[in-house]
């Protein structure tokens, strides 16, 4: 191998260091150049290495690994800084570097007027570098390092506009809520170290089935704890509340971190440690159920939001729910495929949505938008493609192939059942409904606010590239009755186990037709409700249930009352810190002794003599007794 794979994460980190050290002095153009070029080279290297890997190493089932140095070694436990590239991490690397590069390119124009220009690019590069470490890590400890580093970047970038306290609250919320999951995950890592004395992923995956019986309590505990980490990071039920608020950050941040890459780290973790989840079938079923529940909760919430970015945020939660559903039913490859396609179209939607918000003077409310179809044709067209892919319009969009595979496996695989499929299909209907609600509200009707200026080329080009990917991305996993092409799943087949079907796959076309009709129905209903404006829409949105959905099913309210309020109440009671009473009491007692002893120091010589005499008498008496 000509190029060490360590270069891939090293380049964005180098850009981060340069921007941190010299960001203040660099000219704006040079800052942008540093911010984009390093990731671009990284993307290029990823593609070159990827092609080499697929053509020469993959057929023999190998991988590219590179031990950079030893991190530490203590008590027989060795942690290396070692990277390992296989098909799974290659897919993630490709999405991170390539989509990351497009988003950085977009940010050059998007962030142009911002005073924190170099700070923004520094954080973004740090994020890309950390995320690459996360997916390339050879052991879970290094993965955890990347895991925490991306959490930090997420925090920094949500609170990027730190002058507004609302943004800081959102950043804190994201950080604290994901921390709950991270705590579970680190306990899980301790459990693994305790049992296997190693965190090397490959060693774990080979040792675990030997040592642990299927369904044994310790295997279930390990899988549950890792799942906890994944739930926090991927904003799944019950830890999903942070993601909608995370939209306080700039739109490119939402596109890169809170749609395409970081929030799918949980999906990566589960796919990476899939053996542990297969050892605990109960937990794997739980993954599927959580995915199904989350996709419904978030879908209904997305339906009622007014803020463009919050709709997309709930949509992201919902789509990651689909990925979890896929992982839970054992459709590993379908889950990862949906991750990649979702990264394309959701990054596209966030970037296009960000462009709309930017050009409409920071207006987030879709009810105040309208008629942008003619005014911003490129943004409209790309947004339309993204929405179509999100709603899985049949045959032409990539989203159809990825989502349809998940729906099919949720019914037909050995872990699947009808209920999961029903949840998925209802979710698909809602997805189509809210996607096209967005389109009809923002781009159709009469224009209410006019954009300040047309979008520049640096905004348009990434949108167009992502739009193309959102369409053709699906054809590498072509699964219509007229022909099958399984490039993507054959790429992953050496890493992830195949999905076990319990039903005849001759019925697959029927399911494809059903899901196509469902998504088209969703679009049609959206057309009726939001373009034709039939009175039903008005009536429905006034229902109490709509308000319930709007507030994210009351999860924030519940957590506020169940955890935050009691905690604040306790803190208020304990304002004077009751442990202080003990410490202060100790000081008081000492002072008391000091004062009472001080009175004996009265300067009267005869009193001293008396005290000495009595003392001696007492001591002598005591000694004589012995």
């Amino acid at each position: 191998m000509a190029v060490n794979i360590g270069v891939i994460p090293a380049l964005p980190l180098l850009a981060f260091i340069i921007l941190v050290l010299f960001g203040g002095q660099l000219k704006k153009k040079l800052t942008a150049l540093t911010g984009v070029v390093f990731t671009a080279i990284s993307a290029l290297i990823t593609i070159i290495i990827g092609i080499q890997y697929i053509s020469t190493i993959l057929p023999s089932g190998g991988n590219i690994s590179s031990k950079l140095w030893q991190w530490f070694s203590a008590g027989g436990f060795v942690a290396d800084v070692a990277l390992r590239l296989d098909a799974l991490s290659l897919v993630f690397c490709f999405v991170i570097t390539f989509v990351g590069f497009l988003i950085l390119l977009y940010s050059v124009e998007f962030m142009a007027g911002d005073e924190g220009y170099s700070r923004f690019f520094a954080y973004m590069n740090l994020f890309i570098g950390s995320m690459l470490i996360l997916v390339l890590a050879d052991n879970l400890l290094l993965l955890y390092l990347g895991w925490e580093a991306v959490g930090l970047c997420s925090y920094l970038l949500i609170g990027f506009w730190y002058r507004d306290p609302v943004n800081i609250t959102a950043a804190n919320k994201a950080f604290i809520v994901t921390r709950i999951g991270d705590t579970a995950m680190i306990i899980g890592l301790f459990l693994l170290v305790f049992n296997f004395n190693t965190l090397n992923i490959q060693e774990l995956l080979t040792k675990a089935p030997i040592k642990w019986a299927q369904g044994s309590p310790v295997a279930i505990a390990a899988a549950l704890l890792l799942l906890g980490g994944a739930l926090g990071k991927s904003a799944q039920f019950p830890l999903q509340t942070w993601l909608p608020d995370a939209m306080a950050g700039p739109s490119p941040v939402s596109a890169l971190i809170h749609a395409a890459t970081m929030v799918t780290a949980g999906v990566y973790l589960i796919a990476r440690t899939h053996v542990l989840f297969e050892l605990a079938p109960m937990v794997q079923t739980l993954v599927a159920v959580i995915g199904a529940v989350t996709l419904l909760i978030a879908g209904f919430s997305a339906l009622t939001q007014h803020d463009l970015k919050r709709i997309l945020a709930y949509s992201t939660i919902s789509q990651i729910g689909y990925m979890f559903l896929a992982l839970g039913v054992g459709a590993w490859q379908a889950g990862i495929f949906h991750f990649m396609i979702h990264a394309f179209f959701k990054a596209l939607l966030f970037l296009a949505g960000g462009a709309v918000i930017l050009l409409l003077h920071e207006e987030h409310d879709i009810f105040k938008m309208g008629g942008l179809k003619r005014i911003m044709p490129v943004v409209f067209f790309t947004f339309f493609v993204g929405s179509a892919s999100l709603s899985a319009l049949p045959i032409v969009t990539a989203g159809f192939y990825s989502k349809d595979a998940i729906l099919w496996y949720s019914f037909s695989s050995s872990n699947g059942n009808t209920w999961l499929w029903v949840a998925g299909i209802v979710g698909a209907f809602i997805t189509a409904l809210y996607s096209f609600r967005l389109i009809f509200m923002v781009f159709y009707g009469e224009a209410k606010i006019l954009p300040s200026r047309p979008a520049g080329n640096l905004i348009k080009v990434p949108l167009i590239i992502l739009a193309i990917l959102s369409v053709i991305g699906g054809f590498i996993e072509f699964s219509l009755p007229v022909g099958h092409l399984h490039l993507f799943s054959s790429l992953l087949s050496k890493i992830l186990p195949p999905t076990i079907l319990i039903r005849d796959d001759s019925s697959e076309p029927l399911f494809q037709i059903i899901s196509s009709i469902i998504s088209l129905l969703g679009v049609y209903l959206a057309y009726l409700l939001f373009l034709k404006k039939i009175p039903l829409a008005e009536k429905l949105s006034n229902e109490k249930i709509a308000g319930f959905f709007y507030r994210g099913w009351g999860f924030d309210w519940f957590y506020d009352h169940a955890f935050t309020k009691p905690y604040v109440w306790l803190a208020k009671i304990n304002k004077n810190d009751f442990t202080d009473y003990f410490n202060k009491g100790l000081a008081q007692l000492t002072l008391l002794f000091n004062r009472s002893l001080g009175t004996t120091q009265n300067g009267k010589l005869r009193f001293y003599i008396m005290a000495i005499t009595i003392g001696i008498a007492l001591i002598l008496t005591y000694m004589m007794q012995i």
Partner: protein
Amino acid sequence: MISISMDLQLALAVLLFLIGLIGLLVRRNVVFMLMSIEIMLNSAGLAFIIAGSHWIQTDGQVMFIFILAVAAAEVSVGLALILQMHHHFRTLDVDALNKLRK
């Protein structure tokens, strides 16, 4: 020669010591306090003599001479202090000398 039992001899020494001690405690005049200390020292010396004659050892008498020497030195220092005290405070009342306190 009349032989007196050792208990009585020691009782005399203790009596002397107590007289000295009580004198030290109750008198306020420094001169009397110094004299009381002398009595106590002599009672200790007496105890040594008694012990030496009882076990027929010369060590007791050696210690007595030693104590006498110490007592002489102590008296000279003590008298010098009393002179200074009288010179500075125009009093010999020891209770008036609690100025160290503040």
